[in-house]
């Protein structure tokens, strides 16, 4: 399942990059279905990166400091919710600058 989510996420990024929002409705619907199945998908783009975030694998460029931000997300963070318990299913792969 994580592979399917990753592919949809990649598709979403690609469409956004091309400023193409014609399929947004369908992508949103797919995300909604993922959520209904108990997956919480987090795109941490733009967030300040802290070393304490164990839900991402960071590739850090230059010096890591308080201002370091997540500038690119190669794979999203995926949590799975089962019986009201949340657990990390996939670490996000990000680039931090």
């Amino acid at each position, binding site marked *: 399942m994580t592979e399917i989510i990753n592919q949809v996420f990649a598709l979403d990024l690609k469409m956004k990059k091309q400023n193409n929002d014609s399929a947004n409705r369908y992508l949103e619907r797919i995300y909604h279905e993922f959520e209904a199945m108990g997956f919480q998908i987090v795109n941490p783009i733009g967030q300040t990166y802290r070393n304490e975030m164990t839900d991402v694998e960071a590739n850090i460029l230059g*010096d890591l400091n308080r201002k370091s931000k997540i*500038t690119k997300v190669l794979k999203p963070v995926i949590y799975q919710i089962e019986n009201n318990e949340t657990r990390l299913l996939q670490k996000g792969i990000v680039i931090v600058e």
Partner: protein
Amino acid sequence: MKTINFAIDLGTTNSLIAKYDDGNIKIYNNPLGLKQTLPSCIAFRGNRTVIGDKALDYLEKDAENICMLFKRKMGTQDTYYVPSIEKEMSPIELSSLILKELKNFVNDEETMNSVVITIPASFDTIQSNATKKAGYMAGFKEVVLLQEPIAACLAFANTSNVEVTDKQNWIVYDFGGGTFDVALVEVNDRELRVTDNLGDNYLGGADFDNLIVEKLIVPFIEEKLSLINLWKDLKSKTTDFKGLYFELLKIAEEAKKELSHYEETEIELDIDINDENFYETFIIKREQFEDLISPKVEQTIIFIQDVIKNNQLLNSQIARVVLIGGSTYVPLIKKRISEAIEVEVNSSIDPTSAVVLGAAYYAGSKPATVTEVERVSDIVEEDTINFKLFYEQNTRDLEELITGKINAKEVRSFRIMRKDGGYDSGVKALDDGDFSEFVPLLEGRLNQFKIQLLNSALDVLKTLDSVAINQGSYNVQGQPLPNDICMEIDDLDASTTRLEKVFAKGSILPLKKKIYKTASKTILQQSKSNLIINIIEGNARGLPSSGLSIGYIEISGKDLEEDLIKGTDIEIELEVTESRDLKINVFLQACDQEFKNVFSESERAISIHKINMEINTVLGDVEALIKTNNSEENFEYSQQLETIRVGLIETQIATSLINDDDVSDAKFQLDDKKRKLIQRFDDLTRNKLIAKEIEEYNDSKESVEYQLNEEGNERFQEKYTRIIKNEREVINSGNKYLIRSKIKELDELYYSIIKSSDENFITYFYNLKFCTDFSDQRRADKLFKEGDKALEKKDYKSLRHIVYGLSALLPDQEKEKQKNFKDDSRTGLS
């Protein structure tokens, strides 16, 4: 006899922990990652110590405060000077920190006093003793060492049931991410012994990824963009190509994995170079990859040949080669070894966990000499730790502060972990006995935390397990909803409409949600049939007509640009603003049409037609109920119902006297009256209805349980347990639709149990004999005769088909019921 059971693979780059439990091995996952492996890497950041994955973050920036690969220095006097804590750290101390972190993976209640730790075959006595010392420093009372190649052989032997009667020689080929080792192991009927080993500490799978980038991807980009020196520039610290090296390495790693399974793989480059997007794809064939890595693989083959030669053996005297280490997934390796040595090459065990797996088997057979005696003193110590915690339990922020005041001198540091694995503060020193830490929260969830209090040797003295922060559910500034907000939808099973909760009572405004439904009927263009979106404020468990309609949209055939086909998607977006405006946005996918409406409470939309329809539906129910209660001589109850009936008829007459476009408030008054009457009816009947549903639920449950006790039906037990798991919740919900759906699940299970055996159809057959309403009595009689014959012959298979035949002749009650569910009383949503 108690055995050691726990085993640790203390690796150069990665470490693992496992437990032997009654013949099974459990390899523990890092609670903060998803992997079984813990990188053997530690970062010292002044008052904070980070162990594992996250320590790698500081590799570039702060290399002097990062310690890794210290296994290579075990048993030497070399130490690592860590500037940030102004301290020399010995390899033993560092290894003990890794061991302590691995202990954290294990949540079991039992204490770990004894452990098996693996060491490379090349370790001498001093190195081995150093490893033992690290184990004691980490709090183990007994440490047993085991050589890694032996562990790998044990893993292989225990998982593949090989019989060894005579003396044999095995080769263990260990090709990891960063190191390579080859060992010669002598195996006889009861013993394993490492006779020789060779290796290279700087040869590993990471070299393969680099080769793909350097020799395949970079030349491709250079050619397309007419660049030169890209490979050098990529790795330079002052590069213009920020992050590209990592991105390409990731792509290469994926390609390597793909090529282990497929003949070719497509490389997709979608990268930014010199501020311009570069998008290209190209194919790498397995052949190309193999040509690339072949020199490295040949290097490892030479090691094998050397180890065989050095021991005066011939290739033919080697019984098998066991492959371990992540790099051995590459097919070329297996192929080249079998060509070069001409022996059986086994890659059946998981190469990354083989060592810890084998070590755990060993631990499971080795008696522990230390018993648990010191538990009592531990407990006393724990109880002397006084602490106070302060934090917000409910918040809308994505970050919250947890503050702790610890009143115990022995506690020197703390560590906070989010239980879902998304956050770890690392070990941090207390500041004058206190700590304050901002923790990130996962949106819309109950975020649970575990806080550890540690002493100066970083041993855990106390774990606080009850900290939980609820994100997004409550905020004092916000305005809560006084009632549920629901949508009316069709309930095809019960041939009526029901409410589906959209926003729960108490949710904080503003609220927004998208709901996806399917059309439950076809609406042709220009037809009079319509789709109804009715948003209701009121108890979600009640009848739709008992709530207050706060938003109502009718979309009829006239409004459609194309036919709305049954089964297609309808997207409804609902938004309630802070000022309680309701916005409804309906999108019909089949017609590609959007309908937008905004309602505010002061301008309620009410349809006369709808009021009438609702009264009609309830009136039928009221009348039927009066009839049954009269016949049961329940006169008091039916008198109450009668009052409702009269009220409803009066309202109906009144509505027939006004037009839909009436501008006075008459229709609002009528709607209000209708609602009150229906609410009363609802209150009068709800408990009875629910009691009836619960009774039926218990009946269904009993029937299933009876069948489960029959021989041969045990396999259905698991499904049954799953169905009744949240039984209490469902029954207490007071929601008849929920209970009904449980009954349906139970009944379905019952039928699948029945259908699993032909003999179960005997009772069925007898029961059918009491039925009188067959659509074709002559055919039924004939089937009964055949059935009797089948019974005589004990031919239950035929009997089963006869029962099916008879059932088909009975009227389908569900279908009949649905036929009566008139089109104009439906919303068109299901």
